[in-house]
């Protein structure tokens, strides 16, 4: 809501300056977003008197003028035809930016200095005259900003009005708040009408077919008006509120709406068939041409204003092209009505048509203000366009608004707010807001809000009004007494936070990407038609196709992030994301939301150049997988050859599925280079994915402490030559499966290939550690056990010792 400060001041007596008013309004809930001068460009334009005019020595058409601002004299070059000595004209000083875009600078024009620019009225956007310098009255004060000198200095306040405060969408509405703040009262405009026209009943008729959607419809008719341009004062006020002036009749409807908050509509009386109005719903599919020249297709709940033949306006939203005011109009029917907020909003939404009028009806107008606004409009139209106002008015009001009286319990309100206000203080605040307040015998208050406050229907609404005007800052602070509550720890979240810290410790950087992605980004991963990853939750109204489906995988966003960084010369990337994926669930409205973890490594093993001679490889990403599994204390894990159908985007020769028991919990390995290319990545990408939900549910118990060993361990090695395809883990699994009680642990210490060993072969070195918790083992004893294990192993795998 934009309005001029001077306009506001015409309704309420206040001394305070615009900035102060703005602060006070903000602190009662009407947030003032800006306070700007009405004519910012006039701040550096001053009236000056031309004291001398000489020809420019080097230019025939230019004059050298000496001008005075009352204290000093300076030279300005001017080419206007009406320049002469003795006149007072506006001078734009250097630094001024004129509304037409010209930037005034101190200049040297053909060798002569010019300290600014003398202006026409048009150049200052104050008059339409561009023929020459704007000659100002002789009596004007020289040297001060022109807006002050002309007495048109003003400020524009822009208020962000919350949806509950429809009553503040007018200058008088704001004036009421100002009056309440300062404890003064509003000067409402005087409305007095001379009714010289025929009785209204004899010339027009209104019927409401749907009183639910239109509880009140009032009208007046004016004959013999003359359509012309509105006077300056009204055009100026409209312009200050950002409304374009059109003609006197239309301008009045807009002016009264801005002044009183009641949207009005003016019909050309002679274009209303049968001179009657019927308020009723459209038929679905009906077409209607609105005054903006657009054809609209209506719905069966669109409320229409119709004449004896057809629709002439969409109720409360916009008039029709064919029934509006134009230069031929001589007789006007003014509509002032109260349309139901929900009906107006539904229609406005369905038609995607929001207007100043619909905006106000949606937020609730003053049902008792309908007549005042109608009379005010008739008064102003006669004032501006002449003519005769009909005798009386039509006021179809099938469902009169009932003011409601609400009891305010003083103690309850104080307890609710934490204040200690007296009954009188509360009564005073509410009275200032134009509420009718009566003291009850029990000390509470019976409060009747004014009809323009449609938002006040409950006791708590009054409590808020008390708090608002009393000032939130005047409510004391009091710390709540907290009860000891048995809070169940949110382990799922705690472990997520701990995991993030753990990954940070592993040298990984967290990223957060959008939950919605492009469907094509998922298809780039190479899923077969019908794969469940392609079944996504789709947005009905995405911002773009790029962000149109909820992701079923974290992979695309990770790859896009890698590409984004690689393109910016960040070549050593160690990233992770722990976020939700969204899987549609048959028979449920809401999808399954699961947290997934993704880790990706690209580039060198160490970011410092000096130490970065090695690229990351499978061992790095697998090491992170192993670390995460031990973080969750999950055992019973196997790394199995990748299922290519499940995971088409990984390179099957360098990737594995991670299985715990029967459950697939993740995958690790190298991204398929073809997929990488589709994301514009040329470097190898090592990637790890885990289903966090499974990690969480499979997490192991907190381990018990084990005593430290008292006796020394003895180690023995086996180096076994096997085929290249042999998985090294099998050796460990076999050794563990033997169940030797003195065997403490087994670890691979070497994987070795050479020509001596032979093509397609490798040697695996296993180191076995033996220990007894009861005594020191002897060499002989260990040798015997170890030889047994070696023998079994060679036999089982058909392998040779190296």
């Amino acid at each position, binding site marked *: 809501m934009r309005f001029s400060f001077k306009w506001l001041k015409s309704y309420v007596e206040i001394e305070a300056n615009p900035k102060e008013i703005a602060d006070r309004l903000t*602190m009662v809930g009407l947030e003032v977003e800006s306070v700007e001068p009405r004519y910012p460009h006039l701040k550096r334009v001053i009236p000056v008197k031309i004291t001398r005019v000489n020809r420019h020595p080097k230019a025939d058409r230019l004059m050298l003028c000496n001008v005075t601002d009352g204290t000093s004299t300076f030279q300005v070059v001017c080419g206007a035809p009406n320049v002469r000595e003795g006149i007072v004209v506006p001078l734009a000083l250097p630094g001024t930016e004129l509304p037409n875009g010209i930037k005034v600078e101190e200049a040297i024009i053909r060798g002569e200095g010019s300290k600014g620019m003398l202006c026409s009225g048009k150049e200052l956007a104050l008059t339409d005259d561009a023929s020459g310098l704007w000659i100002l009255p002789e009596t004007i004060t020289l040297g001060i900003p022109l807006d002050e000198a002309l007495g048109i200095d003003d400020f524009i306040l822009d208020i962000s009005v919350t949806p509950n405060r429809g009553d503040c969408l007018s200058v008088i509405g704001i004036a009421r708040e100002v009056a309440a703040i300062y404890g003064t009262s509003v000067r409402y405009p005087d409305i007095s009408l001379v009714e010289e026209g025929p009785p209204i009943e004899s010339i027009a008729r209104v019927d409401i077919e749907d009183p639910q959607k239109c509880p009140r419809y009032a009208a007046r008719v004016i004959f013999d008006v003359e359509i012309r341009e509105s006077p300056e004062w009204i055009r100026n006020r409209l312009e200050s509120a950002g409304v374009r002036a059109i003609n006197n009749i239309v301008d009045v409807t807009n002016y009264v709406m801005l002044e009183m908050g009641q949207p009005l509509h003016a019909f050309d009386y002679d274009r209303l068939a049968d001179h009657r109005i019927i308020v009723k719903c459209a038929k679905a599919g009906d077409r209607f041409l609105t005054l903006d020249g657009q054809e609209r297709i209506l719905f069966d709940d669109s409320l229409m204003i119709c004449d004896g033949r057809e629709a002439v306006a969409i109720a409360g939203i916009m008039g029709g092209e064919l029934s509006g005011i134009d230069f031929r109009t001589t007789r006007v029917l003014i509509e002032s009505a109260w349309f139901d907020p929900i009906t107006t909003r539904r229609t406005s939404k369905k038609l995607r048509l929001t207007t100043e009028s619909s905006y106000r009806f949606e937020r609730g107008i003053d049902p008792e203000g309908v007549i005042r606004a109608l009379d005010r409009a008739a008064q102003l139209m006669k004032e501006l366009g002449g003519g005769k106002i009909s005798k009386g008015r039509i006021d179809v009001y099938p469902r009169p608004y009932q003011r409601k009286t609400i009891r305010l319990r003083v103690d309850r309100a104080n307890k609710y707010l934490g204040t200690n206000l007296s009954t009188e203080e509360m009564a005073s605040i509410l009275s200032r807001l134009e509420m009718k307040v009566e003291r009850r015998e029990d000390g509470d208050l019976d409060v009747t809000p004014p009809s323009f406050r449609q938002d006040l229907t409950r006791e708590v609404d009054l409590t808020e009004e008390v708090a608002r005007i009393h000032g939130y800052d005047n409510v004391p602070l009091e710390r709540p007494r907290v009860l000891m509550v048995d809070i169940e720890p949110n382990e799922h979240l705690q472990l997520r936070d701990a995991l993030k810290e753990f990954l940070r410790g592993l040298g990984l950087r967290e*990223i957060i990407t959008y939950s919605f992605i492009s469907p094509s980004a998922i298809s780039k991963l190479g899923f077969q038609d019908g794969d469940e990853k392609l079944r996504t939750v789709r947005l009905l*109204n995405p911002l773009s196709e790029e962000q149109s489906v909820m992701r079923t995988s974290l992979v695309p966003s990770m790859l896009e992030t890698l590409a984004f960084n690689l393109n*910016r010369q960040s070549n050593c990337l160690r990233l992770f994301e722990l976020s939700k994926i969204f899987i549609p669930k048959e028979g449920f409205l809401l999808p399954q939301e699961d947290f997934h973890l993704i880790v990706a490594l690209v580039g060198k093993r160490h970011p410092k150049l000096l130490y970065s001679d090695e690229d990351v490889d499978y061992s790095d990403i697998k090491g992170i997988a192993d670390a995460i599994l031990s973080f969750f204390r999950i055992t019973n894990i196997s790394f199995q050859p990748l299922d290519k159908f499940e995971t088409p985007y990984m390179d099957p020769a360098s990737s594995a599925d991670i299985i715990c028991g029967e459950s697939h919990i993740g995958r690790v390995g190298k991204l398929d280079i073809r997929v990488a290319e589709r994301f514009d990545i040329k470097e190898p990408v090592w990637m790890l994915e885990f289903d966090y939900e499974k990690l969480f549910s499979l997490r192991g118990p907190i381990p018990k402490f084990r005593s430290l060993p008292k006796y020394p361990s003895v180690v023995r090695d086996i180096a076994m030559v096997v085929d290249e395809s042999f998985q090294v883990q099998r050796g460990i699994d076999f050794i563990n499966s033997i169940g030797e009680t003195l065997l403490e642990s087994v670890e691979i210490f070497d994987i070795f290939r050479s020509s001596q060993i032979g093509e397609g072969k490798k040697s695996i070195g296993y180191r076995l550690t033996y220990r007894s918790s009861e005594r020191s083992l002897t060499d002989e004893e260990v040798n015997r056990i170890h030889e047994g294990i070696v023998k079994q192993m060679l036999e089982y795998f058909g392998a040779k010792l190296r």
Partner: protein
Amino acid sequence: MEQVADRREIEQVVNEALRELEEAKKDLKLIDALRVKYLGRKGLITNLFKQLGKVSPEKRPELGRLLNEARDTVERAIGSATERAKEAILTSKETIDVTTPGRIPIIGSLHPVTQVTQEIVRIFSQMGFEVVEGPEVELDYYNFEALNIPKDHPARDMQDTFYISEDVVLRTHTSPIQARIMEKRRPPIQIIAPGKTYRCDSDMTHTPMFHQVEGLMVGKDISFSHLKAVLTLFVHRMFGPQVGLRFRPSFFPFTEPSAEVDIQCVMCGGSGCKVCSYTGWLEILGSGMVDPAVFEKVGYDPEEVTGFAFGMGIERIAMLKWSIDDLRLFFENDVRFLEQFT
């Protein structure tokens, strides 16, 4: 009688030892070998001591004295040779270049949004709030209806909503968690709920996904002054006790009275700058007393219980905390941005 070492012979051994030690220079290993050669179990001087038993008793004290002297001399010489050698090693040219870059263990980082969320959650947890979460794809009912925002209400314009279907939306705020929790439990309730939220808006100051933290305290006689105290404490913990704040009336359909909380601009200290649009104040959270209509929806009696709720945008707080001037940086995930929060 066997020949027994005489003074000359002893001196010879000692001199030989001293010479060899001299020549050993800074070779610690050689010095140790010389110690073995002369003073070891089978060392030259040790062997001379074995002759003591063979000399006549009258010569014995004299010989003993000579041998003790010889041993002490050699021991001292070994001691000083060792010191000299160590000294020489330390001062030799074989020092490392102390300016060689360290092999820094690779250090990761948490996203600034995560860091601020954790900080906010920690502050409220310390005040006794419990952390809960809710779905991001949410029923229209919980996102709006249960919060007193019926369909066809202009308040729906306050949030541009992504729809999945007529009845399903991407949550536009973390507030639906309030309704879900209250539906399940009885007061007293003290919760804090962080999470992702979505609005159909993208420009310099809006991203279609962002993060919020919601808070709710419901119990007997919870008042607006409690709300003020809790949020004041929060602001002081988050931004420092010197930061001023104000509570400004506003409107949210699910609270009444409603209040926006502004803090003194952290950039200019309240004197006015670009960040605060020259107002000196920055809006950081919305709050209010839970509207009775919300209590009625979840089956609480508003005469029996009261409460307050609040919500704040995490990116906004992160931007203020680190003076970040572009919201979009949060979701580009440029590592040059992320590494600044290591």
